[in-house]
């Protein structure tokens, strides 16, 4: 099999999560292990659960792009605007350098504008027609948020959405890597955006996977997931000496379980394959990985399967933790948000802990981090996300190019 030889610099990144607008509130929550899970305020549900909701007022979509107006698009706009607009400025700089047609957008999402579609169906139920404001292609369809960002930023390169449930935005970042490595684009804005909605809350409730209390991934008493929402955007650019001191995407691994639509393979074989491919592409041995940000959703089966995979791949142990007890499980945005968590770990020398962990499941026979740790030497980080349909993705980030 061919292997990419290029590692790709990440020149700007920011995230909006239940922790707040930007990387700083996320970092503070990660460092202190503060869970940002609370009862839902956005709309009424009949299910007792906590969520990672973005409670800040979101910015309004500009008049000329009103056809894209959804909670997802607003979360995307909030992500562009936070951190004093650092990602937006980086994109503007990239436009000057490469031209708008050389910059792509790849966004992972599992909800797209579902929140608005649900409201439109309430209207449809009463009036037998959809509201005037409902725009199927620009709000509901999978590509809507990627297209919104393309027009908001004045880009004219390729733009598409990846939607593979919980691995969506990890795979969007992998697609961005390929667009640059193949020479199709000079820069790609990649990431993920997902918004809370009734479909996912009632759906996961039907699957009996929602936790009533703030979730406790990896704990022996874990009871399921809490959903979250948010946006995370990363600007990837073609390798260049001017970006040598930026963190780099070193490797991506993708695989399919070929096993079950919702249950992971019990031994995590697909997860192992994804991690193995990512390591091979990065040219790294397991000993060279300093920290793994686990998928760690908090369901009994998911965590057990992933830890078997981790144990099989990292036989001599690795520092690992899960952060969905802080942000909630943001589904299609999880891969990108946790990529940013991985980048914060690299740039700040802080490995986050697992919020809510009282006692790790002894069945894992593996150490997982409860509290965060600060160290001077986080040089490489792996980030895992695995979705419905047995769709797996593992990404490796490094502090510098050329395998750290």
């Amino acid at each position, binding site marked *: 099999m061919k292997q990419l030889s290029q590692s790709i610099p990440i020149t700007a990144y920011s995230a909006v999560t239940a922790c707040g607008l930007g990387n700083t509130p996320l970092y503070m929550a990660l460092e202190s292990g503060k869970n940002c899970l609370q009862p839902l305020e956005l709309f009424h549900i009949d299910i007792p659960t906590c969520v990672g909701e973005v409670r800040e007022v979101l910015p309004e979509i500009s008049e000329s792009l009103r056809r894209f107006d959804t909670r997802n698009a607003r979360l995307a706009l909030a992500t562009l605007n936070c951190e004093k607009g650092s990602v937006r400025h980086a994109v503007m700089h990239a436009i000057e350098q490469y031209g708008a047609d050389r910059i792509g957008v790849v966004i992972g999402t*599992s909800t797209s504008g579902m929140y608005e579609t649900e409201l439109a169906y309430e209207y*449809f139920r009463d009036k037998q027609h959809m509201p005037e404001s409902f725009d199927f292609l620009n709000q509901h369809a999978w590509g809507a948020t990627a297209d919104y960002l393309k027009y908001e930023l004045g880009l004219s390169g390729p733009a598409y959405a990846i*939607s593979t449930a919980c691995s969506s935005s990890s795979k969007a970042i992998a697609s961005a890597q390929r*667009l640059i490595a193949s020479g199709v684009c000079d820069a790609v804005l990649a990431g993920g955006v997902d918004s809370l909605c009734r*479909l996912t809350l009632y759906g996961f409730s039907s699957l009996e996977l929602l936790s009533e209390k703030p979730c406790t991934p990896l704990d022996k008493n874990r009871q399921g997931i809490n959903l979250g929402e948010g946006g995370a955007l990363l600007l990837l650019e073609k390798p260049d000496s001017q970006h040598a001191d930026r963190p780099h995407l070193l490797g991506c691994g993708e*695989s399919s379980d070929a096993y079950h639509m919702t249950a992971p393979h019990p031994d995590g074989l*697909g997860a192992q394959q994804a991690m193995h491919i990512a390591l091979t592409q990065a040219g790294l041995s397991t000993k060279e990985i300093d920290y793994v940000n686990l998928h760690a959703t908090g369901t009994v089966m998911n965590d057990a399967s992933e830890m078997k995979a981790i144990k099989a791949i990292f036989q001599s142990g690795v520092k690992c933790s899960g952060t969905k007890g802080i942000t909630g499980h943001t589904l299609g945005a999880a891969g990108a948000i946790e990529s940013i968590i991985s980048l914060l770990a690299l740039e700040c020398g802080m490995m986050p802990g697992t919020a809510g962990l009282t006692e790790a499941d002894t069945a894992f026979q593996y150490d997982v981090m409860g509290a965060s740790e600060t160290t001077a030497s986080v040089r490489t980080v792996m980030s895992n996300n695995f979705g419905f349909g047995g769709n797996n993705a593992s990404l490796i980030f490094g502090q510098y190019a050329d395998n750290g």
Partner: protein
Amino acid sequence: MRFSVLGVGTSFVESAMAETHGFADCDMNSQLLSPRLRRRMSSATRLALTAGERACADANVDVSSVPSVFASIAGEIKVTDTLCRNIAGRDFPLSPTQFHNSVHNTAAGYWSMVTKNKHAAQALGAGENTWVMGLLESCCQLRSLTDKVLLICYEEAAPEPLVMGEQISDCAVAMLLGIPSDKKRSVCIYQQRVEHAGASTELWSPVSAALALAKAVRHPQNSSKLPISSTAHGWYAEVVHGE
């Protein structure tokens, strides 16, 4: 960008529509699916899997041996409609099966399960540009990861409140793509910039563009420059004559 087309497969809900497009005997009854699985699946997933199976057979390639890219504007739109009606009617609990069959990678997930395919499976959507973005994603995979990739573009007819317009649907087109070769049917895709093109008002159909390219690959002597995106985006494909 250039790639070779090693195999083509199509599938249709209605046999009359298949014949109109010159693809007779292209139903959606994949041999990979048991009657029980067929009943559980949406037409979107059945269309995609059947076309994918046919493209692999046409290329004489094992269905378990290649990564896949599933491309659709709306994916599982009928299941989505049912669940949205349930939610609006407060008809709870939702069906857990319907819920997990509403994700965009439902077809990709079932494909990997029934073919025992453990390679990467991509599910993408890009509105009117879904077909060309699927081609671009596939080309990038061919340049960087793999020698062959299965690309499947599919669309089931949307139910009434979500109808997108007069676009072609209820069919799927799959192509088994390979690295470019002088000896195989090859296709070149490129973009011709359009200055000051506004957003188009007509919905442009990715799956009909895929059908047109499938026909052109079968009958390259009749083919010319084919649009593969809306005019505003200016993407075209041309079949390159092989030996």
